[in-house]
């Protein structure tokens, strides 16, 4: 099954001295490391900044264009603005707080992911603990079926439903809506995915509520 056709038969080499084997690999390895790390030096800042941009955009969106945002880190059960030194900030769980130009806090942007129809769906959403309402939602990435599941991204009307919806959200079959603020219609043909998104948000809020309340007190 291999692609190894043609080419002359391998001439029978005498076994090379062990020293050569070792040195070859060691040197090769070293050189490889050198090359890679150099490129990496060049590439890393760009990559990080791009990631930052993506997240910033999402935060911006789900918080409906705050004037200012700050990043908060979850550190032993509390939200801290600056984590103790020595910890890699990228490794910590992060949430973002948004403020309007008056400096009043609009709400928090939270990230969460859980299995949807095919695989894990990652969403970013804005939440205002004061009014206990969702400010906005954006699916960061998903592997749902194109044409069905991915309506949770493409169906802007549906995404809009989350703005101002009261938490906890209540999934409703299209047409059965009673106008209650907590209701979010599911998507016909993508019921599972849409329910998953709603579920993710609810669960995340559940888990973060104590933290947020404490933080709220902190203000």
């Amino acid at each position, binding site marked *: *099954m291999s692609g190894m056709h043609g080419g002359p038969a391998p001439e029978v080499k005498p076994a090379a001295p062990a020293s050569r*084997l070792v040195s070859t*690999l060691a040197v090769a390895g070293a050189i*490889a490391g050198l090359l890679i790390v150099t490129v990496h030096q060049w590439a890393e800042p760009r990559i990080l900044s791009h990631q930052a941009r993506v997240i910033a955009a999402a935060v911006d969106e789900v918080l409906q264009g705050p004037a200012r945002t700050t990043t908060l880190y979850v550190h032993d059960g509390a939200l801290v603005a600056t984590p103790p030194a020595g910890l890699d900030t990228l490794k910590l769980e992060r949430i973002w707080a948004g403020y309007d130009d008056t400096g009043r806090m609009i709400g928090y942007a939270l990230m969460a992911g859980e299995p949807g129809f095919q695989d894990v769906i990652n969403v970013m959403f804005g939440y205002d603990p004061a009014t206990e309402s969702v400010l906005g939602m954006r699916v960061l990435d998903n592997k749902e079926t194109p044409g069905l599941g991915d309506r949770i991204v493409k169906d802007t009307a549906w995404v809009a439903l989350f703005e101002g919806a009261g938490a906890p959200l209540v999934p409703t079959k299209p047409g059965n809506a009673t106008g209650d603020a907590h209701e979010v219609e599911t998507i016909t043909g993508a019921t599972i995915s849409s329910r998953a998104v709603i579920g993710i948000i609810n669960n995340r809020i559940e888990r973060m509520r104590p933290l947020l309340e404490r933080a709220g007190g902190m203000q």
Partner: protein
Amino acid sequence: MRATTPQQDLLRGVWRENPVLVQMLGLCPALAVTNSLANGIAMGLATFFVLLGSSILVSSLRKLIPGEVRITAYILIIATFVTIVDLLLASIVPDIHKALGAFIALIVVNCIILGRQEAFSSRNSVARSALDAMGTGAGFMVALLLMSGIRELLGNGTLLGVTVMGPRFEPWIIMILPPGGFFTLGILLLVLSWRTQRTVRRPQPRRWLHQAAVQTTPTTPVGVGGER
């Protein structure tokens, strides 16, 4: 051994020994990332680059590398190139990098690349290895273009995101789902073997029943089954 001309080195891999369509190697990327033309092209280019780079390096170092550790050494070389490509894509075209996901990294184990090192570069001059690599890379590219073209066209009605099949076209979602990948490649192979069919005739295993019962007189019925 009959030596090969440079043209052969170059052209062999493109069609007659196409790595994907003929040798059935490097199937994973060929199926996994071909759900849109853009991805196909990106993956094709990336692989091309890695293949060319490692072939040149391997062939130039072939005298230095002892046979016992050649596999490991080759892999080192290949992996280095791949990592570099990975970093470059991530920093230059992040979206495509995201779409291709892990499959950029998986170029390392793309059977084609190591296969070529083992089979060719480890034994031939830099120039010939380079030609061979270009040919094979191009062949891989051809396969990817075919696959991803067909799949995006039917699966989304677009090419490179541009609507081609008209606004009311009902996309065949299956084409961008895993089964669609298998089916597309399957059909490609069928078409190919249909073309070769007409040139070469394979000897067929004997099947008594399907060379119809002996007719001594036309009145006695022919075995219907399976006649072709």
